[in-house]
């Protein structure tokens, strides 16, 4: 079963990458880009076939490793 994780910076945390992308898009002539935030997207292939168990496991992986909860939020989707 597949799980998808989005890890994003918490509100208010500086995102130098997003800021630089926004700036570069402006320089390339794309106007009207008001904000850009960059996060991580992680796909996992799991042996687990029970969606609830898979979700619980992935949430624990996020807390322990995938996200830095001091500055990042995470969200988990599992395929049904």
């Amino acid at each position, binding site marked *: 079963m597949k799980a998808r994780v989005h890890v994003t*910076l*918490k*509100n*208010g*945390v*500086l995102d*130098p990458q997003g800021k*630089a992308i926004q700036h570069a898009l402006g320089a390339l002539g794309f106007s009207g880009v008001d904000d850009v935030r960059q996060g991580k997207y992680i796909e996992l292939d799991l042996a687990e076939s029970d969606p609830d168990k898979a979700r619980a496991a992935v949430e624990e992986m996020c807390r322990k490793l995938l996200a830095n909860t*001091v*500055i990042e939020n995470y969200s988990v989707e599992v395929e049904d």
Partner: protein
Amino acid sequence: MSEITPELVAEHGLTPQEYEKVLDILGRAPNLVELGIFSVMWSEHCSYKSSKKWLKTLPTEGPQVIQGPGENAGVIALGEGLAAIFKIESHNHPSFIEPYQGAATGVGGILRDVFTMGARPVMNLNALRFGSPDHPKTRHLVSGVVAGIGGYGNCVGIPTVGGEVNFHPAYNGNILVNAMTVGLAPADRIFYSAAAGPGNPVVYVGSKTGRDGIHGATMASAEFDANSEEKRPTVQVGDPFTEKLLIEACLELMETDAIVAIQDMGAAGLTSSSFEMASKGGVGVELDLDRVPMREEGMTPYELMLSESQERMLMVLKPGREDRARRIFEKWDLDFAIIGRLTESGRMVLRWHGETVGDLPIDPLALASPEYDRPWEPTPAAEAVAVTSQGDPLEALRTLIGSPDLASRRWIWEQYDHLIGGDTIRRPGADAAVVRLADGKRALAATTDCTPRYCYADPVEGGRQAVAESWRNLTAVGARPLAVTNNLNFGNPERPRVMGQLVGCVQGMGEACRAFDYPVVSGNVSLYNETEGQAILPTPVIGGVGLIDDIAHLPAAGLEQAGLALVLIGETEGHLGQSLYLRDIEGREEGSPPPVNLEAEKRNGDFLREQIKQGALAACHDLSDGGLIVALAEMALAGGCGATLRVPDIARDKMTQWLFGEDQARYLVATQDAETLLASARAAGVPAAHIGESGGDALTLEAIGRISLEDLRATHEGWLPDYMSAGVA
């Protein structure tokens, strides 16, 4: 405007007595913005209220000193119109919370302190203390801190060339991350922070201000809603790219004659930078806070004054230079905003969309900050230790050379770009880092040193030793030690024992600096380094800077050829108290540290430097942790050539002491001509003994045994990478 309750005052970290003083100064109750400003200005970090009394006892003057403590960094003259600007700073707590960003922003902060004075940074160093390797957090902290230091310094493009790392359980809950930067500037073009010229524009440049690192009151105040934690990241994220632009833009502006005063926004951001600049110059300031470039909507004056967003600077410009300056910052795509003017009022007036939201007298706030004479207790003297066991010395050497405190740090410094700039002529891993100056003939040497276990056992001796070791490390590369910066890392100063450690260490440091004409020109104090009542070991880190007059004489760090005579300089008594041998082989962290004889240090060091200058030494290394045999092993590994050591007869019965004792004021050198060296030493009254020869592919203790370099190298190089890959970081 919210009412100032005793709870709110307490949350701002002000004692009731301090708050009384606030009321006195203002003649009224402060509003929240003003309370926030008092709170950060009078914080330990900004006011040095516990340490000031003792810092004043340090020697800070000398013919080489252009600027001692009191500015963003210290400045010393290098001759030929050049100055070195340097400082060390801690980022301990943030690095424990978020090791990557904490360490990265620590590097960013110290870089700003140095380039704000007009210097181009040329070397970074870092002094790190982690908990026990067995502690579940240690691996993660090492990994993150090292990556963060590298991530920032590498991107900005300043070589990270040196530092030190220790592991000890006393740092389990409170690691130390001290970062040092050395920069170069023309001696006649140093920039200071004293504002001058009422009417002159106050200019903000760099990154926009966000809600980073705002401490103080939170929930209790009506101005903050339930999401304030989410809104107010306690951890700042570093943006090394912006820092790089800021360096280039500031240095470009400094080439013009536009700046009256300049100061980075470090701890307590806009508040401390504006107050310090105004106070030093004896002027007043009016700020229109709504003109501050903001990263987010809905920011308040309180937040703007207290934010610790990174990569920002404050300047006072000469009148009429605004446009020129603006163009430079625009070229580098940085924010540039005129946010206020200097006045004659001696007051800080803060406006928000035209309305006054704060009005404070500057000097009483900046200068009348509390100063405490905290009660202190000296550390009781330790007993002398007896060592009776006489185990296999080569086995002990193998253990020590692969132990956490002595194992190779290659895994760390290979993550740092230590070569950028093309002037690194002594790479990390040896005594002091050496970076060549533009004249191609001279070079700067720098080092950071402290032996916390010595400081814990005897703060005064430990303070002396830290200075002596840094002085020795500079000497070992042939540099004239010029001045130091220091980072005083201690526990809670409200505990007399801890305060006594600080007092003792400062006393010892002061004595040694005086004896060596090696003044303190800058520094930083980090207190309250403890968790759950467990304080760190007292850790007064010394950052030393010296000058090599001619790099042609730089001796090698290691043994690079066979047939050289090994000469031990300095007197060996075999002091094992607080030695690594005692701790790591016998499991005893006991005794008094080796005494530092400042006269012997000076005499031996001056002699050694003279020998280097005359080209008499092929290689040179100072003796410290682990003593003679460890130093020899390090030299053999560094140069790839083995050696044979003769244990003198008198030392036979005390072989462990002779091999592993940590007596101070000693160097191990390799020379083509032992006889001449010994004769010169005799003439100078310097103890010296010919104790062996280089050669072979092993370390041989005559009549005792041998250990192959390969074996030593495997343990020495293996420990840290093995440790780091043995678990999840």
